């Protein structure tokens, strides 16, 4: 039995006050223990970056422009793309197809922003020549975008590079194939000068296999093969050989781009639906002809850049779809016109496009003084040793451009990939990384396998040299994850519609008279405003909505500009992730 008197208040040291007056804050409650899921800041990859064949950090330079840091934006752009003034003009910009703004209003005019930055870069003094940190040298065959791209990145990685170009001037298809009205030669020349200033040696009028034997390349430690595709495919038009009126389109373009102004007659038919066809049509238009494009399928299947098709139409090019030329109509070797077969779309072929099949009783003829065929080009790989394996006329390469024979790498139109400037640049970059890795391995540096998952932007084919070389990102990224953010992960409610600035064009009346540049792009102010339209998909831009909406004050600003989630108080409600406009916060059970 206790002898303590329970009716006498005991001194407990608790000192309960006479009223319920607070003495502490609720910070004593670890309410974070309630959660079963927690937020994590994870910057993801914007779809534009993932869609860019070159591997440019588009979203990154948009952020920098938005912050008024234009010079850093230029540096970031050039670090992944040696020729933005060119790609800004001629790239088919798949980045814009990926742009999430399309779900709100229209995609950001990425190409125009890139072009404006590119022109700013060209106007600035060239950067210092990179240090020659490596003793090895690399030969590059072809000075198109693949070759120049590869050379540029190899130079930056510290190698000595010599580019061999068969033509009299560098540029490859940029110079031979792309008309001046799309890519002024002054821009091209300045861009190439700038690359030379960056330490690249370009030897023009040297055709490997003819002027220099393949074996002479043994003095280089590696070779990058990017000769382009210059052989026109056979048009298979009956009677084509019997007339000079049916000409390969690329040959015509090369002539015009070299300054010739051939007489095509009044009526020109261009056969094909790709960019070469559009370039032929619009060039022919500028030479005074009435131009009709004949294409086997419908507008939807045309491989040409839609903008190019649109501009061709605006300028007055006529189109006949679902028609295939079959035979030439000639008189005394002079072309009068071509017979065409009406087509209809059948089941899809291996490319996924519906295959055109002839319709019964569907023949007609089109008047033509000249027919330009633009139905594709093949590569001349005859200069290569037989051991370098090809397939369907293209070089077989691995993910980093390495052919079946070391130390030969390849890229551009000579390998199996989409034939675009951007894809060529991307191939050049991949091969530069492949070559660097190969030479390091050969030098016994044991670099280990290239972490492709890490150097790719979003896991598609492109790569980032900066990620490979470990350069510092001007935009701090929070726990970056190499996954493309989806529109569903984002919160559209926080964005307003802002109409896109469209490029400024010469009027159609002007263009027919000249080969001057058609598209003036955007003004600097407009380009900056376009950059500000960027949603920064997947990447925290410190908008602080997470902090504003957190019911638990569990998110605080870090000194470096990021945010800290105090897990002692985060209840895991997920409002931060749900309201993050750009999908840069994920809810996860990891780390609970």
């Amino acid at each position, binding site marked *: 039995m206790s002898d303590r008197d329970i009716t006498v208040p005991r001194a407990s040291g608790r000192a309960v*006050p*006479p009223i*319920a*007056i607070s*003495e502490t804050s609720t910070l004593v409650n670890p309410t974070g223990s309630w959660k079963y899921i927690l937020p994590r800041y994870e910057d993801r990859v914007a779809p534009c970056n993932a869609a860019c064949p070159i591997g440019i950090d588009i979203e990154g330079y948009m952020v920098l422009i938005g912050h008024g840091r234009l010079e850093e934006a230029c540096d970031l752009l050039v670090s992944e793309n040696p020729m933005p003034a060119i790609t800004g003009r001629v790239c088919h910009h798949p980045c814009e197809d990926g742009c999430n703004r399309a779900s709100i209003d229209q995609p950001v005019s990425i190409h125009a922003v890139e072009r404006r930055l590119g022109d700013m870069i060209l106007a600035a003094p060239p950067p210092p020549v990179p240090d020659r940190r490596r003793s090895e040298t690399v030969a590059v065959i072809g000075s198109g975008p693949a070759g120049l791209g590869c050379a540029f990145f190899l130079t930056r990685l510290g190698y000595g590079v010599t580019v061999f170009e068969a033509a009299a001037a560098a540029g490859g298809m940029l110079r031979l194939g792309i008309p001046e009205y799309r890519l002024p030669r002054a821009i091209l020349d300045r861009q190439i000068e700038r690359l030379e200033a960056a330490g690249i040696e370009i030897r023009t009028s040297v055709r490997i296999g003819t002027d220099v034997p393949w074996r002479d390349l043994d003095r280089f430690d590696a070779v990058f093969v990017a000769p382009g595709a210059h052989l026109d495919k056979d048009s298979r038009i009956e009677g084509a050989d019997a007339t000079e009126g049916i000409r390969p389109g690329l040959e015509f373009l090369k002539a015009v781009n070299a300054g010739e102004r051939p007489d095509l007659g009044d009526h020109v038919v261009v056969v094909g639906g790709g960019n070469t066809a559009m370039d032929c049509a619009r060039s022919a238009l500028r030479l005074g002809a009435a131009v009709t494009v004949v294409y086997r399928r419908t507008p939807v299947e045309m491989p040409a850049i839609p903008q190019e098709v649109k501009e061709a139409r605006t300028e007055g090019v006529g189109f006949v779809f679902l028609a295939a030329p079959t035979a030439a109509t000639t008189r005394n070797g002079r072309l009068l016109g071509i017979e065409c077969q009406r087509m209809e779309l059948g089941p899809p072929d291996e490319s996924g496009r519906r295959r055109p099949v002839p319709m019964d009783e569907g023949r007609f003829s089109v008047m033509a003084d000249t027919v330009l065929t633009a139905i594709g080009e093949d590569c001349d790989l005859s200069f290569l040793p037989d051991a370098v394996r090809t397939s369907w006329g293209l070089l077989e390469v691995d993910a980093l451009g390495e052919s079946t024979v070391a130390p030969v790498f390849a890229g551009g139109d000579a390998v199996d990939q989409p034939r675009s400037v951007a894809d060529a640049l991307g191939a050049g970059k991949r091969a530069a990384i492949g070559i660097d890795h190969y030479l390091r391995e050969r030098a016994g540096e044991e670099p280990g396998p290239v972490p492709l998952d890490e150097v790719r932007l979003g896991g598609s084919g492109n790569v980032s040299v900066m990620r490979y070389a470990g350069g510092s990102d001007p935009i701090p990224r929070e726990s970056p994850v190499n996954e493309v953010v989806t529109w569903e992960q984002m919160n559209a409610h926080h964005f307003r519609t802002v109409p896109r600035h469209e490029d400024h064009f010469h009027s159609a009346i002007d263009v027919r008279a000249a080969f001057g540049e058609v598209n003036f792009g955007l003004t600097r102010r407009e380009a900056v405003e376009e950059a500000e339209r960027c949603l920064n998909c997947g990447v925290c831009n410190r908008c602080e909505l997470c902090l504003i909406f957190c019911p638990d004050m569990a998110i605080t600003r870090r000194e470096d500009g990021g945010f800290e989630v105090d897990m002692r108080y985060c209840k895991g409600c997920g409002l931060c992730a749900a309201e993050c406009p750009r999908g840069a916060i994920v809810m996860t059970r990891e780390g609970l």
Partner: protein
Amino acid sequence: MKKVMIGNHAVSWGALRSRVEVVSAYPITPQTQVVEALSDMVANGSLEARYIKVESEHSAMAACIGASIAGTRTFTATSAQGLALMHELLHWAAGGRLPVVMADINRAMAPGWTIWTDQNDSLSQRDTGWIQLYCETNQEVFDTTIQSFKLAEAVNLPVMLVLDAFFLSHTSEPVDVTEQEDVDRFLPRREAVFKMDTADPRAFGALVRPDAYMEMRWHQQEAMQEARDVFRRVEDDWEALTGRRYGPVEAYRTEGADLLLVTSGTITSTARHVVDLRRAAGEAVGLIKVKMFRPFPTGELRALLGGVDRVAVLDRNISPGRGGIFAEEIRSALYDVPPEDRPILFGYVLGLGGRDVTPAVIDDIIDNTRMKSRPEREDLWVGVEL
């Protein structure tokens, strides 16, 4: 300064002299003159106070609670239904240890409608934690109003001073109104122990768990105990200033009495008269006036009633199912008196709903108390006609 005034105005004057800072009230008969006079005083500037003319007694007490936690001296007055409506907030003021002072003009509870006096309204609030002081005269009303603030602010408990409807509230008597400078010396400006302060932001009245609620109630009870001593000192000071003193309990002509009447409120004055007549006739009858109901003056009553033969408690109230409330409280207080000293206690219920308690009624009660050997029931209803 002597003035002839009704009891309600004695309350108003008491509040004026106490320099109340916030008044919040709602009209109810028979309280209205209290707040009418205060309205005039605030309007004419003689009382520098905020007067919140609320839409209910409930809000009147709520506003007083707010003003009090803001650190000011606050006052209200009400009656009957109004007091009942305040009930919840009476707990809030007391549990929050807020020294609000309120005058309750004792009025019987409806239905049926009644405006006349009895004590059921205030006694129904017995357990809300308010100090209750019952007054007999307008002078006592004035004095008690001022004392209530001093007492309330010393022990951080609210005080209800109580006066009978009409018999005091509307009846004019001369009142010696203490001069302001004297009252100021007696009752300085309130310095709140607990108050809302942005420089020291605290939360008041949050959820209290079982491990601390009881301690807070214990503190409240301790304050009630302390109030007994504090009231004595308050009266000491007031007596030094004015020469007037009432005591929690007053013994009137109790010397050698074998029968004591116990009263509160204005019945006391009638009883004094009857006692005087009986004493003049040689009868050993005395009177105990209970002023302080909470805290209950248990010790004083034991001392005064122990050893007396018979005690007649006059209750102008009824706890249905039991009896007169003062009688029950006193009966309980006397339980610990040694059996041989324990008086026979007669609990009379009378005067409900304002029924007149005349000298003749009290005479009858004295006779009835002497006539019976023991009361036949706990509650002896006086004058009921069926």
